[in-house]
């Protein structure tokens, strides 16, 4: 296998060596004819002229061979791959899957480990849970959460949420399947964000059988409510399925 680019840097080195040899020979001859080493060196350089310029015009003589050779290498590679398409396909798939898997894993690692959560004081956010070993899942009951809240003297604030679920929205054109989550009133406060429009949940909405309230995501507000600023206070019909 040939690599034209590396060969060119190699040739550059050789060209410098070739010209240094020329200078060394001229210098030695001047010394032999009786000049002092210093004078001999000066004379050799004067006779030679501009070393950098000579190297440059010599490189011009190499022409665009390196590019031609690079194209030849590419053609050679493509021909070889076409000659053994099965092997080439397996190689390409192996590389593609390897690179793809690495990218996917790193995307997760990047999001989870390296990038901070997009909230104020993200370093102070903590996720706490029980683990039900029989069901093999994280689980916090509502009364447990109430206990955590009243007995809390560790955290500034606590919020809870139910896992994301699907809801059916009716009354805004055709029924829509939306994903949403039930959260406690303190949820946005804990994250340090506020609604762009309308208000945050009220404490009385946090009680069992209290009034129900919905906050719309920006996406739903735009796609289902036409980005209507008067949407605040409207009653929406959400069925939990």
């Amino acid at each position: 296998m040939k690599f034209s680019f590396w060969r060119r840097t190699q040739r550059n080195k050789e060209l410098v060596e070739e010209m240094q040899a020329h200078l060394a020979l001229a210098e030695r001859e001047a010394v032999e004819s009786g000049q002092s080493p210093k004078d001999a060196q000066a004379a050799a350089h004067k006779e030679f002229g501009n070393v950098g310029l000579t190297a440059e015009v010599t490189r011009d003589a190499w022409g665009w061979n390196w590019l031609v050779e690079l194209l030849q290498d590419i053609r050679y590679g493509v021909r070889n791959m076409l000659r053994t398409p099965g092997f080439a396909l397996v190689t390409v798939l192996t590389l593609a899957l390897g690179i793809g898997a690495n990218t996917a894993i790193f995307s997760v690692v990047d999001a989870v480990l390296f990038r901070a959560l997009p909230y104020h004081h993200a370093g102070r956010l903590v996720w706490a849970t029980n683990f039900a070993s029989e069901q093999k899942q994280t689980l916090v009951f509502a009364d447990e959460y109430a206990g955590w809240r009243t007995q809390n003297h560790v955290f500034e604030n606590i919020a809870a949420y139910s896992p994301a679920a699907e809801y059916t929205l009716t009354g805004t054109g055709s029924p829509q399947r939306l994903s949403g989550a039930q959260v406690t009133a303190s949820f946005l406060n804990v994250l340090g964000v506020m609604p762009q429009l309308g208000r945050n949940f009220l404490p009385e909405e946090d009680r069992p059988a209290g009034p129900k309230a919905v906050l719309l995501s920006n996406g739903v507000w735009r796609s289902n409510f036409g980005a209507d600023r008067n949407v605040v206070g409207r009653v929406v019909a959400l069925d939990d399925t």
Partner: protein
Amino acid sequence: MKPRYQNRTEILQGTLDMLILQTLQWGPRHGYALSKAIRTNSGEILKVDTGSLYPALHRLERRGWIAAEWKASEIGPRLRVYRLTKSGSRQLLSERSRWERLTAAIAGIMNPAGKESAS
């Protein structure tokens, strides 16, 4: 811009390749020896500028008329030694005949009497 030696004649455009090929006919030589041989064989009249010599050597090598080989030397850096190839010998023949036609034509202009007797 470049300093020139007053007492030396520049090598005629297009003849350096021929002079290199001709000089290599007597055996492989490195760049420095080549420039010295051309100067000495011309009776110290022709001086090969290194800025012309090395581009010419590399160009001739690319055309395949000469081939290069690295040889170790006692002065430190290795020496790049050039030798004439088979196609280089053929090229030398064609350049020589072109040169002879050219000099004859110039002689004919400079000496019209000679041209009349020749034709």
